[in-house]
């Protein structure tokens, strides 16, 4: 009983992300809507922790019923395997069933350089340098061949996409394949790694000077590159409200979606913690 109470108190603690540090920190709360009925509201951090639950914003392909059925299937899969919270820049290990491997399982460790997709199509790319060869693997999060997803180091970087690691010095993408899971120092806040990566000399795969990257050291390019970047830039896009509106799901809908999945996700989290705690106690 004491264990359950302790775990319940853990869940009541706010799990804010770095972006929301300083803002109001809310946990699961029951608010009242206009008619006075209690309505469960998921914490706002959910849209960063579980971004694949939000559908593709393109209106031509949207259908509420199909999205709801897809979310039910996603929760079913999540009840079997733990898909932890991770961000671009986190170091992860994925174990996949592979017929061609000697053990029939293949484990890969890497840094998450990009994540995307919505619903059951959600994916992420892990990058590592193995035997001086850069290797990137795209994993589909809900593929049933995946046996285990571990987050070895949970952290964020200054950019949402780390594709520039392909043009960076190899030491920035190298991680030991036998890396162990690191303990989180602060359970409530996801740390941001302010590292500035050094790129190799040109030619590069993309024109990094045009992309406003924060996590890259000074590129030291001739001035003509920066002039052309300015010419080609679209500084008015940050004022284009309709563009951003069309690219995102409105906040009211997001709240509805996460309220729907929230209680099930919490239950799954609780069960896993109990199982872990029980396993730990049994060992002792």
């Amino acid at each position, binding site marked *: 009983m004491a264990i359950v109470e302790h775990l319940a108190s853990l869940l009541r603690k706010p799990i804010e992300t770095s972006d929301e540090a300083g803002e109001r920190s809310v946990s699961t709360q029951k608010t009242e809507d206009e008619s006075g009925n209690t309505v469960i509201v998921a914490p706002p951090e959910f849209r960063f922790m579980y971004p694949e639950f939000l559908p593709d914003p393109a209106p*031509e392909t949207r259908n509420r019923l*199909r999205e709801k059925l897809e979310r039910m299937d996603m929760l079913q899969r999540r009840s079997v395997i733990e898909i932890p919270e991770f961000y671009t820049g986190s170091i992860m290990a994925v174990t996949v069933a592979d017929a061609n491997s000697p053990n*029939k399982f293949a484990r890969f460790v890497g840094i998450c350089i990009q994540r995307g997709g919505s619903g059951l199509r959600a994916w992420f790319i892990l990058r590592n340098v193995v035997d001086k060869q850069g290797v990137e693997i795209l994993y589909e999060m809900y*593929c049933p061949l995946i046996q285990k997803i571990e987050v070895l180091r949970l952290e964020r970087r200054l950019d949402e996409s780390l594709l520039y690691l392909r043009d960076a010095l190899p030491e920035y993408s190298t991680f030991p394949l036998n890396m162990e899971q690191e303990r989180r120092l602060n359970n409530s806040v996801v740390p941001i790694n302010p590292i500035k990566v050094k790129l190799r000399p040109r030619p590069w795969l993309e024109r990094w000077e045009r992309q406003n990257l924060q996590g890259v050291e000074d590129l030291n390019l001739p001035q003509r590159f920066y002039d052309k970047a300015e010419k080609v830039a679209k500084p008015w896009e940050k004022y284009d409200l309709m563009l951003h509106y069309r690219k995102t799901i409105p906040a009211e809908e997001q709240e509805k979606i996460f309220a729907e999945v929230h209680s099930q996700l919490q239950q799954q989290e609780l069960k896993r913690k109990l199982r872990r705690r029980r396993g730990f106690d049994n060992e002792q």
Partner: protein
Amino acid sequence: MVSSLAVDITPSSKAFKLFFNHEQIRTMSRVKRRTTHPPYWHVLKNNQRDDEKISSDNLRFVREVIQDKYKNKSPIKGSDLGIEKTEWDPKTKRSGVIARNIGMQHMWEKDGKKIICTVLQVLDNHVIRYVPPEEYANSVIGAKMFKNRKPLGCLVVGAEATNPDRFTRQYCSLFNEVGLLPKKRLARFIVTPNAALPPCTPLTAGHFVIGQAVDVYGKTIDYGFQGVVKRWGFKGGPASHGATKFHRRGGTIGTGRDKARVWPGQKMPGHMGSERRFNRGLKIVRINMKYNIVYVKGTVPGPTNSIVQIFDTILPRRKFTEAPPHPTYFPPEDGTLPQEDIWDSSLHVFGSPSISV
């Protein structure tokens, strides 16, 4: 001159295609591919009058009248069927179903292979009327269809019940006999007489069997007026190397000699899409009885949220060998609920453990 040769190379012969390099199908060039108006025997459907200045009291009264007229009916049980219990035989043609294509979803097979499935929502289908074979053979379409064949019956099915305010009186009168709310969509399904259904019978996702093959009819995505590269897959011209204004054009449209004119059916820019197409032999991999959803392996003509029709397949090697729910599916009499989510045996169910090879 052409027919005097030893090999027959008239445009309709097979040798024509072997002899000449171009493979354009010119015989269908004169057939009209799409219309924007309904057939002449259809009644006017949508309400043409503007919103009159009706007072709120009158509006409330109209709504009450509608509610009284179309009071909810209890679901039809199998025992209430007006016709005798008929036997299924391999030559039976069952009714089809009107559904909406609500999108696509990934699923995985038991060996880990990913498949793309189209999610089809079976709308609130009800049988409106049954036209027996002799009567249907006298109609315009029926006469054409059964010119030298034995005639079959026709089942008119409707879906998507709507407020009668939207439709004209003539259209609403089509549903007076049945006493149902007027349906937005109507479809005809050709059935053998032993698969006839009485009016007001509901058709649901249970009409289909897991693992069966279906044909889906729909209207393809409307691309509008399109150029020759997108419409016919022409290669166009070089993007650079000095090409002057020739990047996505068709090029030559004929020789100067043969016939000395442009042949009918020459591929040119024009309207693309919005055409009737069937995707045949699609396998049903999952049925959700609670939400009336059918998951079909493969793609279906038409964009998301468009209406399609689903029938049992006509492909000879994928037809039924065992009797399906004939003439349609009825919930069990003793009130037991059917299994909510039925999966095909080849599919990996999401709640089951991860696959290990």
